[in-house]
């Protein structure tokens, strides 16, 4: 039996203006149970405003905002969420355990302290004063505070800023574990690799509207390009004239060819130059897709 996808939070036609600036311009966004959604967009695209509306920190000028079917300012709705904000200075004279116990006290059925500490990987920090921790450790404590209430929906705003690669991978593992338990996650991030590694669904915002909404796979396939790189003596200008080749350039002794038909072009390259070596074929990643989508948008608005 298939369970219908349950919507747990939504923005419908949400408009938010700050003076003359329109931060959200009729945004529609649905969050589904158990889903990890990455919210991407250039600075000023409206990501933070969208999250602030869902958290009840600001009110929409128009449109509807719903969190578990209620107004986000209703405390009963917020008892089902966990929050990690981009910047929050926590009381430095409290210990990590005291900070966690305080946050746990806000929730009806929180995790135990050892469980929370284990999930966030901060078991060794519990007795330490918060002010004495490194930036990366403080972020992990903030993450622990976000998950300690056993939330059904977790908001993570740029969670891995200031973390080294090892800490970042550990946090990703913890996020996956939480999603596997059925918790939905909304993630904003500047690291596209982070969205690529974690997200089931990616929503790209620009100028307060949704530009693209779909799976990581679907987003990537909007950019059908692949990039072929190899060492070869072939003339780049001549290859650029081949059918289905978008561009071909020579860079630092390597030939770089962009195409939508990688297989056919590779075959022809190998035929043309038997001495060709160090062949690489790269699919366009999320970064290329993201750049492509936001560029399309800005060129459209300029034309309009």
């Amino acid at each position, binding site marked *: 039996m298939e*369970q219908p996808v*349950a919507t747990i939070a939504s923005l419908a036609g949400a408009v938010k203006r700050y003076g003359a600036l329109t931060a959200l311009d009729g945004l529609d966004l649905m969050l589904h*149970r*158990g889903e990890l959604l990455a919210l991407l967009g250039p600075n000023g695209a409206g990501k933070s405003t969208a999250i602030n509306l869902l*958290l*009840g*920190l600001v009110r929409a000028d128009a449109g509807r905002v719903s969190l578990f079917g209620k107004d986000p300012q209703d*405390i*009963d709705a*917020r*008892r*089902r*969420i966990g*929050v990690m*904000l*981009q*910047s*929050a*200075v*926590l*009381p430095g*004279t*409290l210990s990590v355990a*005291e*900070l966690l*116990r*305080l*946050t746990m*006290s*806000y*929730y*009806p*059925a929180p995790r135990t302290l050892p469980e929370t500490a284990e999930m966030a990987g901060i078991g060794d920090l519990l007795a330490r004063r918060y002010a004495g921790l490194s930036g990366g450790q403080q972020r992990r404590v903030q993450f622990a505070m976000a998950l300690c*209430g056993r939330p*059904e929906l977790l*908001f993570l705003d740029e969670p891995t800023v200031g973390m080294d690669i090892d800490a970042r991978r550990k946090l990703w593992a913890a996020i996956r574990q939480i999603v*596997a*338990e*059925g918790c939905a996650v909304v993630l904003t991030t500047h690291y596209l690799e982070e969205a690529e590694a974690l997200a089931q669904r990616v929503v790209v915002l620009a100028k307060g509207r949704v530009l693209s909404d779909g799976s990581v796979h679907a987003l990537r396939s909007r950019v059908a390009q692949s990039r072929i790189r190899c060492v070869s003596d072939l003339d780049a200008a001549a290859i650029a004239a081949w059918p289905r080749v978008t561009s071909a350039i020579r860079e630092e002794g390597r030939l770089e060819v962009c195409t939508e038909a990688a297989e056919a072009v590779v075959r022809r390259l190998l035929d043309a130059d038997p001495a060709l070596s160090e062949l690489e074929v790269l699919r366009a990643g999320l970064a290329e897709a993201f750049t492509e989508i936001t560029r399309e948008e800005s060129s459209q608005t300029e034309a309009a």
Partner: protein
Amino acid sequence: MMEAVQQTAMPEASRRMPASRVIGAYWTEMRSECIRYLRAPGFMLPVMLFPTMFYLLFGIVMNRANGPDALRYLLASYGVFGVMSPGLFGFGVSLAAERDNGLLTLKRALPMPPGAYLLGKMLMAMLAAAVVIMLLLAMAVGLGHVPVSGGQAFLLLVTGMLGVLPFCALGMFVGTLVKGQGAPGVLNLVYLPMSFLSGLWVPLSMLPSALQKLAPIWPSSHLHAVALRAIGLGQDPIGTHLLVLAGIGVLFGVLAARRLRRVG
């Protein structure tokens, strides 16, 4: 996918917050707020040192010759002076800082029960006020040999702990107007002139008569009258003073709460 299905089926009732846990949340918040400041010497030391040093110097050392009644009078004056600072600074400086550094935003996003944040700060200010009054009482009795009865000491303590509240409201109002680093300066501009103008440093009778007439504007002059009465000086009825103090507390409290809700 089992977990997701189970969670969907989870009954609404099990997510409801039992009253005992709501009370627990208030309690934990108040406890954290107190511990947090008691461990911060940058806050506690000035709050305790200024009134006690002043009382020692200008009271016990310089005014001993004028007899125990002078020291009794100054106990009330420096008591009020000492009680104002945890109210004004404890509330104002921390609120201004926390509006700036994201802590208040996080607390508003978390399901913290309404008002727990402010209640915590209020309790912290009351505790700090109690510590100041007890230190001053110990000095007055121990070093100044002022005869203070148990009842008088108790009344002065209650006056200090409740008297801090209008200054909490005033500090909170300033904290909602100023953000971040600017708050201590603005609060000192309120604190020091107000202390002087309401006769906490120099008795009112020695100030120019124009300033004497202005004194009832300042909340600290009303608290001073109540504190003098508590310690056994003065026969004037204190009903009006209490009403003014309560009114100031409610007025600034409501103004600040409204601003806090609107602009955060």
